[in-house]
């Protein structure tokens, strides 16, 4: 698997989704592209032909506003036709801005009210343990989302109940909607927080590097204890496309004009061509 190429293609599809509509949560979608690619193309035991396969691995995207990123990957995995991507948030769509398990094949839990998806993931991990089916349960929370008290309720339960089938990720992109996380209500030292909640903790310095993410997941699967694992990904919000990344505090939900869409698609295509030429 050429991770770099796949990530460029996924970013191109996310930009297409949001640009076709004209507005959307592009920053937090771009920051988790590498994670989604490593999960869906290497680690997850899933079957796009049978989205509800029993004992499949599951992903609960608790930062539900990153739906457009997940849709680009699910579409590429053939969960649904390519033309769905132009329907994001349009009347009657199956791709709403926030993840909806009852609308989109491949979405394992409805999320959007921050903090809740993480608890759902803990419940799913507990359920998988009761069924003894050997599934891995993955979940992604935001750094801003970590300010929700419910996250820490669920954290205590997961370690108490030895849910070592649960591998969680913090998309630590340092930004929340209004400003830098550190300026509003800092979550640091986030690794120590999770350690003190009795979780295994792995910190990935470049959270937008597929190889580093892959190594962290392998490490999480091989911990010789019964604890759940939190992988903290130090990411860049809007990573991978210059005008999005440069918008920083304004890229949580951005207007994407037709000109921006065109220039963005061009930039990503050029990167793809350069890469293929090499």
């Amino acid at each position, binding site marked *: 698997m050429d991770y770099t190429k796949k990530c460029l293609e996924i970013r191109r599809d996310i930009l297409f989704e949001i640009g076709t509509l004209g507005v959307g949560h592009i920053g937090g979608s771009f920051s988790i592209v590498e994670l989604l690619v490593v999960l869906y193309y290497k680690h997850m035991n899933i079957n796009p032909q049978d989205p509800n396969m029993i004992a499949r691995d599951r992903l*609960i995207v608790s930062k539900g506003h990153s739906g457009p990123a997940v849709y680009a990957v699910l579409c590429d995995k053939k969960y649904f036709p390519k033309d769905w991507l132009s329907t994001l948030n349009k009347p009657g769509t199956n791709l709403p801005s926030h993840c909806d*398990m*009852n609308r989109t094949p491949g979405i*394992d*839990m*409805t999320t*959007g*009210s921050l*903090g*809740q*998806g*993480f*608890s*759902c*993931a*803990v*419940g*799913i*991990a*507990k*359920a*998988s343990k*009761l*069924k003894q089916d050997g599934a891995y349960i993955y979940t992604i929370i935001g750094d801003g989302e970590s300010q929700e*008290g*419910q996250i820490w*309720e*669920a954290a*205590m*339960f997961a370690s*108490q109940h030895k849910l070592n089938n649960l591998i969680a990720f913090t998309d630590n992109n340092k930004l929340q909607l209004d400003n830098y996380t550190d300026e509003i209500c800092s979550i640091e030292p986030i690794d120590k927080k999770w350690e003190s909640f009795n979780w295994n903790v792995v910190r990935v310095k470049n959270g937008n590097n597929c190889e580093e993410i892959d190594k962290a997941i392998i490490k999480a699967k091989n911990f010789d204890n019964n604890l759940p694992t939190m992988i903290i990904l130090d990411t860049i919000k809007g990573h991978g496309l210059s005008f999005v990344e440069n918008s920083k505090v304004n890229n949580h939900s951005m207007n994407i004009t037709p000109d921006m869409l065109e220039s963005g698609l061009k930039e990503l295509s050029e990167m793809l061509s350069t890469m293929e030429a090499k």
Partner: protein
Amino acid sequence: MEMRKFFSNELEKYMIQNSNIVVLNADLAKPNGFQDLSIKYSDRVFNVGIAEQNMACMAAGMSSYGFIPFICSFTPFATRRICDQIAISICYANQNVKIIGTDPGLTAEYNGGTHMSVEDIGVLRSIPNIVIFEPVDNNQLKYALPEILKYNGPVYIRMLRKEAPDIINNSSDFNLFGSKIIKTGTDVTIFCSGIMTSEAIRAGEILESQNISTEIINIHTIKPIDKSTVIKSAQKTKAVITAENHNIIGGLYSAVCEVLSENCPVPVKSIGIKDTFGQVGKLDYLKSVYNMQADDIVKSVHEVLKLKK
């Protein structure tokens, strides 16, 4: 038998048959009657800690895995404290979670105003995709439980902990989406729920002695309300009283008025908590403070009959 004990005994019968039934407590297993089950089925009946938000969403996650989770707490903590979790992770996501709230309204007694939910039905009734059921007695609860288990979706069970007098003699014809006509009459209808059903029956006896023919209907399922029975009775008697152990805003009075105003506008008087908070006290005392006794119902009937056209 106390309703909590009765419920856990009944639930165990179904747990034996169906290994997907699980119970999540938020550190109130003992007062809610689940202590024995939590020892006997320690893997399936567990305490999440004092963390109701997590409990609600964990249950939603477990439901997505095929389980039928019951989440249990005192009424205010099972509803208003977690209304967003119920709205999004349970109802919007359409998960098969059963919510048990105990000690509703005045029955919180010595726990007082902080624990006395006057708003739980109102909070949940405004969330789409939830069934709200309040049993009158153990017998009704017994017939409701298999229907609640059969129904694939969110259900709120507003339940007593303590003993409830046996009121409804025959519940074998129970329909979760219906209502129970306790007594037929022609002059006035009393729609009642929960602990107010016994007050309504006592009021009915007084009214009969005054030659006022009273129809008494127990609305055990306030959402979705049994519209056709409500309309039919109001068309017959043309005067209505509601009696509930809840704020009259958002509860039975509101639900009945919503149906009648569109279909059969007749005068409706309310018995219930009149938009105020609760306080500590024994049930009888509190019923007298909030004018929720049989005599208060009789008085309201006389008033509504004056308004009747």
